[in-house]
């Protein structure tokens, strides 16, 4: 899962245009939305696209999405569990 986490950080920075961040700036456990990284609703939708495009995972339910997209770790866990 370490590799997946590292890969996700790179993908997220690129997809969400977080150009002033490096993977080292993103903690595995920190909340992506609200506090922590402070991503917004469009970022959430972009993450849904990344999960679909790169990992074949579809999230249609926003409520379920909130839990999955909580942190890099929860995303990595979900991908691992649903491969």
């Amino acid at each position, binding site marked *: 899962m370490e590799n997946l986490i590292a890969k996700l950080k790179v993908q997220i920075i690129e997809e969400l245009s977080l150009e002033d961040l490096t993977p080292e700036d993103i903690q595995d456990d920190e909340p992506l939305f609200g506090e922590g990284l402070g991503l917004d609703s469009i970022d959430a*939708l972009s993450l849904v696209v990344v999960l679909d495009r790169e990992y074949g995972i579809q999230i249609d339910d926003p409520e379920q999405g909130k839990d999955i997209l909580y942190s890099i770790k929860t995303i990595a866990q979900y991908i691992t569990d649903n491969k």
Partner: protein
Amino acid sequence: MEPSEFSISHYCLIKNRRIILNGEKLIEEEAHGDFPSFLSSVYKTFGSEYTKFYKMDLLSKLGILTTDFLIDFGSRIKKYNENDIAIILANSQSSLETDARFLETIADENKYYPNPALFVYTLPNVLIGEICIKYKLKGESVFFVSQTADFDFLRIYSENVFRNTKTKAIITGWVDLDFKQNYESILFLVEKNDGSSTDSSPWSFTATSMEDLYFEKNLEESE
């Protein structure tokens, strides 16, 4: 002829890798690198820290940078209330450069991943939205599309807005970007002449005045 009630207190032009602010060349970049790199370079050198910049499409980045210089990152409009400033912009290409990018994310039926972060920018007025968010402006705004920059129309319409609403200052101009990333942007800060510093501004709010600045006639004369 009646003295004009309004004048241009500041203007900023971004064209041909140059940024001209009130007649002075702020930046003139060497001709290497593409338009996106030019924008990033300008942002990194001069821009205030504003992480949302990177998420914007190229048209919005162009418009935001022009605005940043025009109003000196907000200091020139501090005297105004959030409801007092109107934004009246126009261009010829609408958001077509971004439209083409969004299309790429859906063109191939087998690689169909519509990108919401791009889609939101397939409307030219979102550039105005970005300016309003950054500078907390809640006034009137409108985005027009025309074949060429019609400064006389922008003047007429701005004056209508001044007369018809409580607007005290207007950011107006032309921010354009085509499919091939040819770009040009000129914005004017127009204020009511009220006996303060704006009365001594060198540029009257007329089509001729705006065209001269757009075509850089003022710079030709001084060179």
